[in-house]
């Protein structure tokens, strides 16, 4: 972070990857214009940035790359509003800004020595990708026991990071359960079914396990009771929330849930923490 927490680092678009067949999700690999900024930008999976496009504004986006990947920072962006629509029309080599890293991260210290269950839905898989890449780094892999992933989207063409998913499927140090709500592809060899259903079917124990969950509200709503049924306590269900944000540093006042600011005290909360807060998110 610079001395002025509102001043973004200038970055250049190195590469744009269209992630989904509907073209609504694109990944942006960004490189820092000033080398020293890259050194100052030190992040942990689960954190986010304000992506700043002069003339359009700023939006909070989770960091999809892992700190173990050097030379770029990656964001996967859904085309929804003014800023993201503009970003989707930008080209490689164009300039924008990022402010961050912001917020907290998944509880890596607590999760050390435990099994990690990653549950994601739709385009909310970005910081989960960061987390998986981070955990699979050989230095880090030994810090965790079993890593299990349940990730689903509406259809095969809407899955993010498809090549990586297929690579992870092949590995034996991570259990992948990829699923889609439905498909007419006869060659689809993974699961068909909603994320909560697949979770219920595939996950049999909560022993010594943390579940990190990120997805649309409807998925979270139906996954939570499943996890509780399997035996996860609220302390071990970890969720990442979204909110309308502006400053990203707990000052401008809009993203609060009770006395917590999602931008600064979150975006990562345990269900136990959320249970203490008003249901206003």
């Amino acid at each position, binding site marked *: 972070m610079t001395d002025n927490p509102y*001043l973004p680092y200038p970055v250049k678009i190195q590469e744009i990857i269209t992630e989904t067949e509907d073209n609504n999700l694109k990944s942006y690999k960004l490189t820092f214009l000033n080398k020293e900024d890259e050194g100052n930008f030190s992040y942990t999976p689960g954190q986010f940035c304000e992506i700043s496009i*002069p003339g359009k504004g700023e939006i909070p986006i989770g960091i999809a790359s892992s700190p173990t990947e050097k030379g770029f920072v990656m964001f996967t962006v859904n085309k929804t509003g003014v800023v993201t629509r503009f970003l989707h029309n930008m080209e490689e080599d164009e300039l924008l800004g990022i402010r961050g890293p912001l917020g907290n991260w998944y509880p890596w210290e607590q999760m050390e020595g435990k099994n990690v269950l990653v549950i994601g839905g739709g385009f909310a898989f970005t910081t989960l990708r960061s987390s998986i890449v981070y955990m699979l780094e050989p230095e880090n892999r030994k810090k965790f026991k079993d890593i299990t992933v349940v990730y689903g989207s509406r259809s095969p063409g809407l899955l993010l990071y498809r090549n990586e998913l297929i690579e992870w499927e092949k590995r034996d140090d991570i259990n992948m359960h990829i699923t889609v709500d439905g498909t007419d592809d006869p060659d689809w060899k993974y699961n068909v079914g909603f994320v909560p259903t697949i979770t219920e079917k595939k996950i049999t124990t909560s022993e010594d396990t943390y579940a990190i969950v990120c997805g649309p509200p409807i998925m979270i709503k139906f996954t939570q009771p499943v996890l509780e049924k399997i035996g996860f306590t609220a302390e071990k269900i970890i969720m990442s929330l979204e909110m309308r944000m502006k400053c990203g540093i707990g000052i401008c006042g809009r993203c609060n849930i009770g006395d917590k600011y999602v931008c600064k005290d979150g975006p990562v909360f345990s269900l136990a923490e959320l249970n203490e807060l008003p249901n206003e*998110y």
Partner: protein
Amino acid sequence: MTDKMIKKDQFMGFLHKLKNDYNVFIPAKEDDNFYNFTALGEKETFDFDYKNTRLSPKSFALPQSEKMFEFSLNKSDKDANILREAASDSSNTAIVGIRPCDANAFKVINANFDNPEFRDPWWTKHRDSLTLIGLGCNEPDSTCFCTSAGGGPFDEKGLDILLFDLDEHILIRPITKKGGKLLETADINQEADSSLKQKADEVKAASEKKISSHVATDKLKSKNALELFNASFWDDIAFSCINCGTCTFLCPTCWCFDIQDEVNYDQGDRIRNWDSCMFPLFTLHASGHNPRPEKVQRVRQRFMHKLKYYVDKYDNGIACVGCGRCVKYCPVNIDIREVIRLMNE
């Protein structure tokens, strides 16, 4: 530092002298029916009987709109698409006649803008440039409840200097080094005599007695936030609310803001503007989801923020200084004192 005094008829001379080293603002009416802080010119005089300004002086450190950055979108410019910090004026400014409640509000807001993790550069710069010269309230209104909000009509906490209006004389009490420095600059060095000091004590005591509005806030901290959030009274409180921003914009402690980019041809500014939790747009996601879509949720948010969330977060009392502006100017008479009573019950 010791109490100083000047004769009342020398007061304007003192203020004009101050203008050599400070931008001097005093409450003045111009052509309106209400007071606001106005740069001291030749025609303004200081009205010791003024009650308070319609708008709070928070705008000296948190203007309604403030340019944060500038940028060029012209690709032929070397720094196209890169933000440059906008120039901002932070020359020494004296706010003369600020009421103790409004000065306290700077302390309330400061907890948010200048915290161990982040310092807001604009807020801190402006705040540091201000010298707050308070005027104690000899005649508080019946809507003043500062003594219930951690202050008082002669409260010194937020001030650099406190003035006592004692008929023919003004007792000038330096409170901070900054205040002392201002008095030195303006050659205010006549010590207040003991009879004047005694009179000041009497006026202060009398004024505190005149505060007729009292609300208990003692239980707010120990209350369970979720129970307060789910309390049954919010619907009743919210019914009349029209969801305008009067309370938040007039409030000396409401600090929430929005950040907007504005572009003129290929040159643009990033600006921050006051925002209000009363407005639905405040929390609307780009997806269309809104965590606070209904008016009752927004009304609850404002009071919970001031009277519970802030209390829990900073252990610094309530985020209300008891100035009474919202009580007087809410078009539908939502009286925060009544809300505090219900919440503290």
